[in-house]
């Protein structure tokens, strides 16, 4: 191999690519556009890890530093902080509440200074929301005056709803911590196995069709190129030279495609902020491809274009008087295609049942490689399937006959173009199945009973009476149809510590009305004044303190209402009535069991409980969509550090719905990419058959006949491809689900994907028709 000769021939090919007349330039531009689109997608995909990493970097950079040591005493540079997580109409909202303790308190990232008491800085998105009628209800929740905007360094995404407020009410009783500066290293939260699996599959599914497309794009205009190569042979070029020249032509298109792709990528990253999936969006500056992956793209694209061209010329003899394709194409063999599938299955099947959802490490390589092999195997199977199927097709009208015969003659071209659809569709179906199982798993794991309550909040109170008033206030909020409210604290075993005891045994203590207590335990009967003891059963997995609870919460036992070790003066005591009944716990609406002592108000009155809290579960009027926001507002008004948690699984479901829509949109985009190459292939084929089409028109062939012929020619391979994709996708999805011990929840997930495929058939046909009509003019018969 002489590099100089290679360089010369490749350069000659590149020259042909840009100086080959109108059609040559068009071909190069088509290749560049196709490759460019693919490269842009690859670069965007390879930016994803960095995008997510930068979010973490930003998150940790703005977090108050609490990592190096506990700051016990206030100082000139210290501040108290509390991070408030909330939501507004389904969108995540977070706020950093600050109380500087000295003049030198650190300034939060993205701000010019700590706002004055009662003031806040807001993110641009929050600013817009608060300034609009849609934000009126939220305005009530944030009792601070907006005095400025948080800059990019203080945000994790351009659409984030975030505020930094000066909260004078923060104390060491209700704070998260005392800080000296911002920025600390947050240990990376490991992804669970299910998510990891999804990410691996999503990558493979997105990237494979793009590579297939790049391979197809490199073959654009093959027949014109063949004629040019024959002309080269006529003037003395040898066979090897013509192949190198052909490779050079493709290389030029691919290199131009790289430039186009880079341009498209740079342009599209500007819109990164406007796209939001699963509450995640990114600043354009964070959309930076992973260096290694980007280099891989830079290397793989041109090399693959050369390799694909040389492979395409394998069965072709370029002779001086024309290009001769191997007259009888070799019969496609099935065995090696099945072998690839089997190899993929061999990698995947051993992992069946071996992954637990809570696992944080999975064998990414094996699963990724197995999935890639299965998808490649399906792609490889398609040409065989198309050939085997069209060989058996007979009869039908002229349009059908023309299409079928064309496919019988060159099924490879059609199969190649459709192979991208197979990968995208099969992958999308497998992903949809995974997501459905994930949705089911995660919803089931919450254990929430949303028929009993939809919101849960826990608020600090000064004493039992104050806690009771809080429950009543929340019960009176507009849109609340009922509350399950208890005043919660603890009771301690009476008497001195026993030998070997470091802590006094303790049991949870809840005071509430009978209706509320019935939500926590199975009560045979209940009247005000009754007391119940709920003892965790032996082996209860959700009660690690079971022995201590059993020791403390006993009918007739004397307990203290505060920790004697922490209390100065008289420690209030209380005897659990001997008549207290031992009852069985029932899961509360959150899905948890509450053990310990349950008492009705008359049994203990407004006893001096230790650090009482109002535990409130709220039932909402479903006809008022803003009811959760009104309750959140009320809770924060009572306690500015309150957290209100939504129990409804609809929020979770809507997230999954958006992800499912995302997958469908992603696979549709990928299939559009494939459809584009199919369209180009169809248009090229039509252009190459200009004279033949004109002659068919000459003897009276109807437009509809030829139009239908194009439709069949597109529909048959796509339909076969989709059938293969459905079978393969369902199979792959089942295996991937079996890995995590999940079952298939819906076998019909493939319907939307098939719908998209059908739409593509129609689109490719419709878009081919204008050219077909044009080529059916008699001009094609002119020879002069």
């Amino acid at each position, binding site marked *: 191999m002489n590099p100089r000769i290679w360089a010369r021939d490749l350069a000659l090919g590149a020259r042909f690519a840009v100086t080959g007349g109108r059609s040559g330039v068009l071909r190069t531009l088509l290749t560049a556009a196709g490759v460019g689109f693919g490269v842009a997608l690859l670069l965007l995909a390879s930016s994803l890890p960095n995008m997510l990493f930068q979010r973490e970097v930003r998150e940790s950079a703005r977090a108050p530093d609490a990592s190096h040591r506990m700051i016990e005493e206030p100082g000139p540079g210290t501040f108290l902080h509390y991070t408030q997580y909330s939501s507004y109409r389904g969108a995540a909202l977070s706020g950093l509440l600050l109380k500087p303790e000295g003049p030198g308190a650190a300034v939060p990232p993205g701000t010019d200074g700590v706002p004055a008491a009662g003031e806040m800085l807001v993110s641009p998105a929050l600013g817009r929301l608060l300034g609009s009628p849609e934000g009126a209800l939220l305005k009530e929740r944030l009792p601070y005056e907006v005095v400025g905007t948080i800059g990019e360094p203080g945000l994790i995404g351009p659409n984030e709803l975030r505020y930094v407020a000066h909260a004078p009410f923060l104390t060491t009783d209700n704070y998260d911590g005392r800080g000296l500066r911002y920025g600390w290293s947050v240990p990376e939260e490991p992804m669970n196995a299910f998510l990891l699996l999804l990410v691996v599959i999503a990558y493979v599914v997105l990237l494979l069709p793009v590579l297939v497309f790049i391979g197809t794009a490199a073959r654009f205009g093959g027949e014109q190129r063949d004629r040019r190569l024959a002309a080269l042979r006529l003037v003395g070029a040898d066979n090897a030279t013509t192949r190198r020249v052909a490779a050079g032509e493709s290389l030029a298109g691919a290199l131009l495609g790289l430039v186009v792709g880079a341009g498209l990528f740079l342009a599209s990253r500007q819109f990164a902020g406007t796209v939001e999936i699963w509450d995640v969006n990114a600043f354009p500056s964070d959309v930076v491809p992973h260096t290694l992956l980007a280099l891989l793209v830079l290397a793989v694209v041109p090399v693959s274009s050369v390799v694909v061209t040389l492979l395409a010329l394998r069965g072709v003899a370029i002779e001086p008087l024309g290009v001769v394709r191997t*007259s009888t194409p070799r019969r496609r063999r099935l065995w090696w295609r099945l072998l690839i599938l089997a190899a993929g299955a061999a990698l995947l099947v051993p992992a069946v049942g071996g992954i637990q959802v809570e696992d944080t490490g999975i064998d990414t390589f094996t699963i990724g490689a197995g999935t890639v092999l299965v998808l490649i195997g399906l792609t490889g199977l398609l040409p065989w399937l198309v050939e085997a199927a069209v060989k058996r097709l007979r*009869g039908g*009208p*002229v349009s059908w*006959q*023309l299409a079928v*015969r*064309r496919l*019988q*003659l060159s099924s490879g071209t059609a199969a190649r173009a459709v192979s991208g659809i197979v990968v995208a569709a099969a992958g999308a179906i497998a992903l949809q199945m995974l997501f459905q199982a994930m949705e089911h798993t995660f919803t089931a794991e919450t254990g929430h009973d949303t028929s009993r309550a939809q919101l849960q909040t826990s608020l600090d109170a000064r004493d039992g009476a104050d806690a009771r008033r809080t429950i009543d206030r929340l019960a009176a909020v507009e849109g609340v149809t009922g509350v399950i409210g208890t005043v919660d604290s603890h009771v301690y075993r009476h008497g001195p510590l026993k030998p070997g005891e470091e802590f006094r045994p303790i049991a949870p203590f809840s005071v509430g009305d009978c209706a509320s207590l019935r939500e926590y335990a199975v009560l045979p009967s209940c009247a005000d004044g009754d007391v119940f003891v709920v003892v965790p059963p032996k082996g209860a997995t959700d009660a690690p303190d079971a022995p201590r609870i059993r020791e403390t919460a006993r009918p007739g036992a004397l307990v203290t209402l505060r920790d004697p070790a922490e209390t100065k003066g008289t420690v209030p005591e209380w005897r659990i009535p001997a008549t207290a009944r031992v009852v069985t716990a029932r899961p509360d609406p959150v899905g948890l069991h509450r053990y310990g002592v349950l008492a009705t108000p008359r049994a203990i009155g407004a006893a001096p409980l230790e650090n009482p809290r109002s535990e409130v579960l709220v039932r909402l009027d479903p006809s008022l969509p803003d009811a959760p926001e009104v309750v959140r507002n009320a809770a924060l008004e009572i306690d500015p550090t309150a957290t209100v948690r939504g129990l409804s699984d609809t929020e979770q479901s809507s997230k999954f719905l958006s992800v499912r829509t995302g997958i469908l949109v992603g696979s549709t985009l990928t299939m559009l990419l494939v459809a584009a190459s199919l369209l180009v292939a169809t248009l090229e084929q039509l252009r190459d058959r200009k*004279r*033949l089409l004109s*002659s*068919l*028109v*000459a*003897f*009276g*062939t*109807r437009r509809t*006949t030829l139009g239908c012929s194009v439709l069949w020619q597109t529909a048959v391979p796509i339909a076969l491809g989709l059938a293969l994709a459905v079978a393969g996708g369902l199979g792959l999805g089942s295996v991937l689900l079996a890995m995590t011990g999940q079952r298939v929840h819906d076998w019909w997930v493939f319907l939307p994907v098939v719908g998209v495929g059908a739409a593509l058939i129609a689109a490719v046909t419709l878009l081919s028709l204008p050219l077909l009509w044009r080529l059916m003019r*008699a*001009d094609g*018969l*002119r*020879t*002069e």
Partner: protein
Amino acid sequence: MNTAPLLEATGLSKAYGPTAALSGADFALRAGEVVAVMGPSGSGKSTLLHCLAGIVRPDAGTLAYDGRDITALSDTARSALRRTDFGFVFQFGQLVPELSCVENVALPLRLNGEKRKAAEARALEWLARLEVDDTAAKRPGEISGGQGQRVAVARALVSSPRVIFADEPTGALDSLNGERVMRLLTDASRDTGAAVVLVTHEARVAAWSDREVVVRDGSVRSSEWAA
């Protein structure tokens, strides 16, 4: 021949952009006659043929087929006329490469709505008549140029047309094959009573015709039709 013309054109004009391909051409064809249209390259021979066959609508002039003005017909009606009454042979055969030879020959019949088996049976008869029945199952790429052109002639004749339009039918053949194709074409047309419009620039091909017309600069300059 004193019968009324089957196909008669008067003052046909056709321009492709600024270039006039036909300017006031007159032409007449009687049933069953073979007329050679001669002329140098670019003279407008093929355009005349395309206009006469109703493939291209002339910019001006009248064209009557069997007493009907076919320039006034819709595209669909002209297509139907071509399917039923006209047959075509082109320089390079223009056979559909995916179809076998018998399927190619049966194509005009199938386009006319005939059942596949019946159409292919008739096609086989024509292939035998043109001495290429051994190519029936082969695809056009698997047969010689001469055989291909005979298959094309069979395709032109299979629907029993009243007029056959042949555009340089021997242009891509050697003289021996050319002679053979012309003999088969003219014999078959005479047997079936079909008229032939034969576009050629070769005198020895034109010699197979009953009369010749010469097209020069878009006009029919010499003609023996009025004689």
